[in-house]
């Protein structure tokens, strides 16, 4: 289980998270929605210790992330797959090497690594792209390689940072389908950060809206769709102020 406990984070004088408290239950997919710049990605990065909170903490299976030392943080990161907004693939490596990188760190035998890479690429419908370089792939394919890299590790948690941003509607739907398939395949807990409501309704068990650094409302997809909170309604209906 992942718990955000009264998380505060500011960059310079600008507060981004101002008391974020939220619980992600085991094996659910929780979608965090919110306006651009509302701190969704910042919250996500606190889970893997890429950012350090000013106050509060994120608790993952009883471990307070900000207090973990090097080896403990490394152990935590081995349980988490992170899918970055723009994939963050390593340009100088082939697709196969990108997917294999995390597996090599775990000291697996090359035969097992090759098998896991093949399986992960098959799961994201990219069989046969092993020897291509990121520069030779479309934006959607790069994001799918990013998912393959995360799921090849067979993590307990998968974190998605804006997985459909910048994609056309059809490719976005493909990404949604992949996220659902990944969850079924791994049984992993998912946290998805997005402002794409169609994606949120498709992949989420619950949806939480982040607004002014805190959770404005959290509930099931049906509860959010029926929300009477004017801020939530405005956002999910995409109405300008």
């Amino acid at each position, binding site marked *: 289980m992942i718990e955000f406990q009264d998380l505060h984070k500011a960059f310079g004088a600008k507060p981004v998270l101002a008391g974020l408290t939220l619980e992600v239950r085991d094996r659910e997919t929780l979608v965090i929605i919110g306006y651009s710049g509302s701190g969704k990605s910042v919250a996500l*990065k606190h889970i*893997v*210790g*890429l950012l350090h909170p000013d106050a509060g903490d994120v608790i993952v299976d009883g471990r307070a992330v900000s207090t973990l030392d*090097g080896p403990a943080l*490394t152990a935590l*990161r*081995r349980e*988490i*797959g*992170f899918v*970055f*907004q*723009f994939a*963050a*693939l*390593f*340009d100088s490596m082939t697709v196969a090497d990108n997917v294999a*990188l*995390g597996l090599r*760190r*775990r000291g697996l035998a090359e035969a097992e690594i090759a098998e896991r890479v093949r399986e992960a690429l098959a799961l994201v419908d990219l069989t046969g792209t092993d020897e291509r370089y990121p520069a030779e792939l479309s934006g959607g394919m790069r994001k799918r390689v990013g998912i393959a*890299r995360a799921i090849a*590790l067979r993590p307990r948690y998968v974190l998605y940072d804006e997985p459909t941003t910048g994609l056309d509607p059809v490719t976005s739907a493909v990404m949604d389908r992949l996220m659902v398939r990944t969850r079924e395949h791994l049984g992993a807990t998912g946290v998805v950060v997005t402002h794409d409501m169609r994606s949120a309704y498709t992949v989420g068990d619950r949806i939480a809206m982040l607004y002014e650094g805190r959770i404005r409302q959290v509930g099931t997809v049906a509860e959010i769709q029926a929300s009477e909170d004017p801020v939530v309604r405005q956002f999910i209906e995409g109405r300008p102020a």
Partner: protein
Amino acid sequence: MIERVGRGTVRAINAVGRFGHFVGDMVRAVPDVATWGRLTIVQMRRVGVDSLPVALFIAAFTGVVLALQASYTFTGTVPLYFVGTLVGKTMMLELGPVLAGLALAGRVGASMAAELGTMKVTEQVDALETLAYDPQSFLVLPRVIAGTAMFPVIVALAILTGIVTGWVASLVLLDLSTQEFIKGLKLFYRFKDTWFGLFKSATFGFTITLVGCVVGLRTRGGAEGVGRSTTQAVVYSAILLLVLDAFWALVLLR
């Protein structure tokens, strides 16, 4: 005015603190040989192969110019075989290491800052961390070790090239014989001339690659930030290289 000086001082102290912290992290990553060992070989090849042409090109013309300037200065006052002395000493002690170092600050330091800066702003460095790699052992140590190990090799070849072109220029343009050139070359030669230049170039290699990594990994703000980091890496490396050059002369040549 006082406020500006104060802010500048605080900024400078912060920068030194961050640099010290960075070096501390790098040293702590040394036991992770499994990660940096293989990558260092790749970087050594890149640093060596990429840098050699520019270093040798500069050294070749420097050797010719040194021979001609020595002849211009000595003619009528000092025996001409001193051309060999001047070419040898200057290439080994100063121009070989420093000119190659400055060229490589532009070539290697800038390319490292640009590469790591791009990785930083495209979240590749964050991705490494989430894959349980330490960026220090994956990115920094291989580059710093490669730079420290390969710079003396590059500079040794540059020195050799400069002396050879100085000798050829003496033969062809100055009517100096090979025997006279070698006589001059040997005249005040001490083994220290060789190791001083090579030791100095190792410290240049360490500094240039470390600055490239530090500046690259603190890049912010997209393409503009990468451009800024690249320029900063060249400027800081060149300044530090010249300061180090004076420092080693003061410490080791007195």
